[in-house]
């Protein structure tokens, strides 16, 4: 299945991209993160367990056990700092 993945702020800078389309079998956010960490470098350090980041599925915050479906938009970003 295909996922549209978005990165914001520090993660966008660190990964060198703001978005990508990923062909993956990851059935949950957790599985997606495992796959992304396997890229190594900044991917494994920024997305390490215990690092502060948030995940939204189709523009709503979700927990790491949230399931994923074909065509989902998944955004990964640091804790927000607006206002």
């Amino acid at each position, binding site marked *: 299945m295909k996922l549209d993945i978005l990165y914001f702020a520090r993660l966008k800078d660190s990964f060198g991209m703001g978005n990508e389309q990923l062909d993956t079998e990851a059935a949950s956010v957790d599985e997606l993160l495992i796959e992304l960490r396997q890229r190594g470098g900044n991917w494994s350090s920024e997305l390490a367990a215990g690092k502060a980041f948030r995940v939204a599925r189709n523009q709503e915050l979700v927990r790491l056990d949230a399931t994923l479906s074909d065509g989902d938009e998944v955004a990964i970003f640091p804790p927000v*700092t607006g206002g």
Partner: protein
Amino acid sequence: MQPFTVRIQHEVFDCGAEIARLSANPACGAVVSFSGLVRDYGDRQDIAALELEHYPGMTENTLHAIIQQARERWQLQAATIIHRVGRLALGEAIVLVVTASSHRKDAFAAAEFLMDFLKTEAPFWKKEIQQDGSSYWVEAKASDQHAAGRWQ
């Protein structure tokens, strides 16, 4: 007039005009506003400007949801949230929250609630740019989480 509005924009906004717009309703005896400005210090010193990034779509949805929560807790006639994105110079307004109610307590409480949740839930990120041109992403603050937590 649309009484509950959310705007994300690059352009400077006019706080006075926004307050006047919500003051035009004769049923509103109380209008409260908060404006947040670019300050000359943040996580570090000598800040010259900010760069604001957001998640288009989710930002607007989140702010409308926060307004809806405020309307369920307090009696509000109108509310406006405006947040700028892009590059902001020292002293410029970043955010404006205006609430209008029949009574001041509702307007005060709702304005504070909207700001507390905007700061912890709306997907905006600030980069601070120092006078020498160096820049860094601002870290989220535990004090903001604490401020939002007291409304639970």
